[in-house]
């Protein structure tokens, strides 16, 4: 083909729709650089690329990989063939975390019902979610490439299966800043006694400045590390020390002329205000009984329910991104505590009510429209019984399954009542409308008002983006209101 013809083709083909957004994008990116150069606050609110549909995000991650087959994706064919050997063609060339040899198909012990106006299928394990199902868009066609916890979690939350990239929440505060400087902009709440597999890297800032890393708020001990004054130092004494500190720092600033000193005086005042505002927002005991009975919360307890209520309080107070991790969804069936018949109902009992309460509560407060709620795990579970120990075990469970799983989104910019995508007869592969972690990331950024393709950070010579180097990530328009 001649070069002239090539040129001509370039002129006539697509890509003209976003011209008007580009101006905004470059203004926006320019403003970030200016902000940095001037030493101003990296977390002050920033203008998005386009009008955002969601102001904040509450991301509920069920670490371990909840079973879509027990919760959202009923498969009558799988029920019928329970106990049959998994067809060989599904196993060829596949690697599983634990399954060896030929596993048997395993139907679910749970019943499914159609729920809400939309008639979406929901398991009997989620009776409360069934009541709010019309607010959610359920994606039954999630698919990922990673079958181990840490890489799968990292891919989902940082766009890279390896350690070292920035997490979605860090990207969100980098791009948008935060609304309330007396609280961290990106808060992480962990339940289930253990941090998720990939550890704190899941809320790290990666190559972004560390000011954007997630701040883990704890429900026991200091809600934010080092928040409490040293034992014996009262708040009034702390105030007095900060007054002296400020006076001396101002003297020093006058002498040296250093501009950083002024910024740092302000950071101390912010820290002092955080000492009051963080415990206040973290103290759920002042919520009325009606709220506690809605969520099933008990002040002082370490629980997912408490974290859900905290999430609402945090977004209500202007926190940009609230990330919940709940460990304990890795139901391999190697013991009672990983059995889909015994432990899974415990997990859903602990989470179903608070999640439904969160959605209802946000809605009732008029916050759901501007708050995006995301639910899901890092992958799904196999339609086959794992049976790692052969005939010796009486327990039932499933191995990690990257090929198909379910997530749902609700609130800010999401069309409620949507069921998106489907899987094959036994739930092994996605058979329509696959949604990848990259698609999900593109969709989240889009809803926050950020252009997933333009939004980047220059690092080591590359335009680093949440959606990775290729443009395969796609905003899932079918989910948007």
């Amino acid at each position: 083909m001649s070069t002239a013809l090539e040129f001509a083709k370039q002129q006539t083909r697509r890509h003209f729709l976003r011209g008007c957004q580009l101006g905004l994008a470059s203004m926006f990116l320019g403003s970030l650089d200016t902000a940095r150069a001037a030493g101003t606050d990296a977390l002050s609110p920033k203008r998005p690329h386009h009008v955002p549909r969601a102001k904040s995000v509450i991301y509920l991650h069920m670490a371990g990989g909840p079973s879509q087959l027990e919760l959202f994706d009923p498969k009558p064919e799988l029920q019928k063939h329970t106990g049959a050997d998994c067809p060989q063609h599904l196993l060829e060339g596949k690697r599983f975390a634990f399954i060896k040899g030929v596993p048997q198909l395993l139907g679910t012990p749970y019943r499914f019902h159609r729920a809400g106006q939309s008639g979406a299928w929901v398991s009997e394990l989620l009776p409360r979610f069934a009541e709010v199902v019309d607010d959610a868009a359920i994606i039954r066609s999630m698919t990922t490439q990673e079958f181990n916890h840490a890489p799968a979690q990292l891919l989902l939350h940082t766009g890279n299966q390896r350690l070292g990239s920035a997490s979605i929440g860090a990207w969100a505060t980098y791009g948008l800043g935060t609304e309330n400087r007396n609280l961290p902009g990106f808060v992480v709440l962990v339940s289930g006694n253990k941090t998720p597999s990939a550890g704190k890297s899941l809320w790290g800032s990666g190559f972004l400045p560390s000011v954007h890393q997630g701040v883990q708020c704890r429900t026991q001990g200091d809600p934010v590390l080092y928040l409490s004054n040293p034992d014996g130092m009262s708040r009034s004494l702390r105030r007095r020390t900060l007054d002296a500190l400020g006076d001396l720092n101002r003297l020093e600033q006058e002498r040296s002329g250093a501009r950083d000193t002024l910024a740092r005086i302000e950071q101390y005042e912010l820290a002092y205000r955080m000492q009051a505002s963080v415990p206040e927002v973290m103290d759920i005991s002042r919520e009325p009984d009606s709220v506690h009975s809605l969520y099933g919360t008990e002040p002082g307890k370490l629980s997912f329910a408490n974290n859900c209520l905290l999430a609402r309080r945090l977004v209500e107070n202007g926190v940009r991104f609230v990330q919940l991790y709940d460990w304990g969804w890795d139901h391999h069936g190697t013991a009672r505590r990983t059995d889909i018949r015994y432990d899974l109902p415990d997990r859903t009992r602990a989470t179903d009510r608070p999640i439904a309460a969160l959605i209802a509560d946000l809605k009732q407060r008029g916050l759901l429209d501007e708050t995006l709620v995301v639910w899901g795990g890092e992958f799904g579970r196999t339609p086959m019984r794992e049976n790692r120990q052969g005939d010796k075990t009486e327990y039932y469970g499933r191995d990690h399954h990257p090929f198909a799983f379910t997530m749902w989104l609700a609130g800010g910019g999401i069309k409620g009542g949507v069921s998106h995508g489907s899987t094959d007869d036994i739930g092994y592969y996605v058979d329509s409308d696959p949604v990848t972690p990259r698609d999900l990331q593109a969709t989240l950024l889009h809803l926050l008002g950020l252009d997933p393709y333009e939004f980047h950070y220059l690092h080591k010579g590359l335009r680093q983006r949440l959606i990775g180097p290729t443009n395969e990530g796609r905003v899932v328009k079918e989910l948007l209101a």
Partner: protein
Amino acid sequence: MSRGTKGSVWPEPDEPTVREGRHRRRNGMTLQPIATGIRAAAVAGLLAAISMPAAAGPDFAAEVRPILQKCLPCHGPDAHSRMANLRLDSREAATGAEGGYAGIVPGDSAASRVMARVTADSSPMPPTGERLSEREIETLAAWIDAGAAYESHWAFNPPVAPGPPEVSDPGWIRNPIDGFVLSRLDSEGLRPSREADRDTMVRRLALDLTGLPPTPEEADAFAADTSPEAYANLVDRLLNSSAYGERWARVWLDLARYADSMGYEKDSLRTIWPYRDWVVRALNDNMPFDEFTIRQLAGDLLPDPSTDDLIATGFHRNTMTNTEGGTDDEEFRDAAVKDRVATTGQTWMGLTWGCAQCHSHKYDPVSHAEFYSLYAFFNQTADSDRNDDSPTLEVSGDVSTPVLSELSGTERRETFVHKSGNFMNRGERVEPGVPAAFHPLPPEAPRNRLGLARWLVAEENPLTARVAVNRIWARLFGAGIVATEEDFGTQGTQPTHPELLDWLATEFMRSGWDVKGLIRTVVASATYRQTSDATAAALAADPENTLLARGPRFRLPAETVRDQALAASGLLSRKIGGPPVMPWQPAGIWQVVYSNRQWETSPGPDRHRRALYTLWRRTSPYPAMTTFDAPSGETCTVRRIRTNTPLQALVTLNDPTLMEAAQHLAGRAMAEAGPEDEAILDRLFRLVLTRPPSAAERERLLALREETARDLEADPASAAKLASYDQVLYTSLRRRTLLADTRTEAPVWRYTSEEPGADWTLSGFDDSEWSVGRGAFGISRAAPESKDPYEASIRTAWDTTDLWMRITFDIHEPGLDGLRFEVRHSGGFEAYVNGIPAAGDLDGSGVHSPYAMSRAAAASLRRAGNVLAVRAIHTGLTDARRNIDLGLTALSPPEFRLTGSAAAAKASWAVVANVVLNLDEALTKS
């Protein structure tokens, strides 16, 4: 599948070069193509035949390249993503002399298609981002009209020692550095600042060279030394102190992505501190940088390598190892090898080779295939993502550390290009080699890591020396001469002082890569010795101090924040090297799946070691340091980006370690200065800041102290805590064993495997028929001399599902608090004290873990004759790990050594010390 090409920034892999255009139109108009291939080719051919003299025109590097850079993602060296068959990264290519589209007609901007495209009303180039400014368009046109002469990127040409420039004030110059700096200041019409005073200089030097503050005595001695050699002697003394190696090792370990754990999900601990200690030793011995390089990259390939040469190869064994079940070892071995290539490029040449693992580099001359030629150098080591990190080298009796070990003969691997960076998607086979844009490997050089290492430190290498001197400069001045320390490629920033950089680089090589010599030269300069104080005018003229009209001033690195406080208070342990330690950190940081290892504060002085020795676990790094921008160690970090957050204020105000330091600092100042408040304050201030306080500062802090003391007199409980903060902090100091587990002794229990009556938990129950045996209980299949503490601890066999155990214990101390069982078991257990439920779990962790005693059970405790009754339940399918071991500990009340007025006085000084340690000046090198 081809979707989502919207606004493509990077190409999708494996698509043909000729593709549909992705250039966006800003309105519906279509531009008519103007240029024809025939004409362009003819012109280019003509021009290629005549050699172009460098005509006067815009400065290529400073003005033109930044414009062209915007075109290179689609019109650069990466053939995969090239659009319209147009290349703009070299003159030959841009003029069509290499057969591509001729976008530029040298000497004729009007005929150059590129100009039409950037000025087009509709769909102007570049397709994304802002359109070129009027000025940029004029520059581009002027450059083309002047002949479109390209210059190769400065950093790819070897440095040449420049001659001394003309300066306005030769008297200011202490060494050649100052000439380059002053000449630049002259051209900008700026003047250097005065020299900093001696207190400032001694603190600056001590922090820079050793990472520790000077003692007031050192400062006094320096202030009193009027000899002309005083400054040089101080520098030598600091460079010769062992603290020098510790401070600069930390700089290197960021590059080495050093950590004490393997990374990934399990992130198990690994023993690689011998490598860290090697770095400290090598720096303290002032090992020449070329040797330092060769040993780390290829120590194992040297003839007769010493143990140290092998330990040095730990540099590239700091890559992560994935020990998670079901992972493909080859996948993670490949990830480690790629990381080694990328890290080598970053560390020695300041290049982003890693970009080329999926596709040819967009800007710099390293192609996709060349990346894999570099990969081939690193692809022949025996390590292979194994759980035991083998191969390892036995350093001493029980210490083995990962090292590189070259495969030989038939074990050697072939290397292929990985299409799209995917190790399973093999392309052409490649041999070890270096990118063609750089000096070649000498023909006689071995095609292995040793050959590569020598190539890196060869005199012809344009980058290694520049990158090394720039790094040292950046640590001393807060920013590099090339600000993007990690990128000396065409995307990086231009050097602020190119001649200075080249002088330092050539001098560094000429000196035999003498690192201490380089530092000595830099700190001897008048440039370094300037005050960092700035007038408003100076700030306005150069806010970032890129021109160096004043001295450096920037926040201390994370490690120094801690080390300085400990050193000033006298708490700092000066022990060098050895296994990492666990200083105090908040509870609950280490809750990571699959890991039951607890963070237990190191005993004795080990909790006050330098930050360098803090155990570093990649997935849960020490929080106080990450808050101050310390990297996690996951990947090579060339430059820490300094941030400024309220969380940092919370650390320095409230971290109990820093409060403990404040308390000790107060105690030290009181002990050393005598009873006068002024003297105590001056001493305290000098211990941290070296300089004495001003009158205003003294007055303000004494007022704070007096008010605080007055309030604390009325609040003795708070005063006692603040005065003896270590008693608050180290509950471990107060923990007492009430009932030992087998880690200290093996107590005698009554036990049975027959289900007893319902009253078996009560004090009055008769257990005299039960068997008698020592813990731990379980099944041991190991030989008695087994090293496994778990196997070795089993004294009494237990092979049934349930085991009932009873023991009686006394409490000798009143006021115990924090009662907890220390339990090791893999199954379930329930514990009762005096018949009252005290603790339990369905599912144990298999290592000793604490279980708090219930309040009701604790309330039932009496001085003597308490009965602990335990039922252990084995829940596993096999006998493996059937065992239980159980003890009981408690905290005795804190012993506050000071009470009354003495406590209030000490506490008030601790509060003042807390303020002084938080002064902006204290947290800043100025």
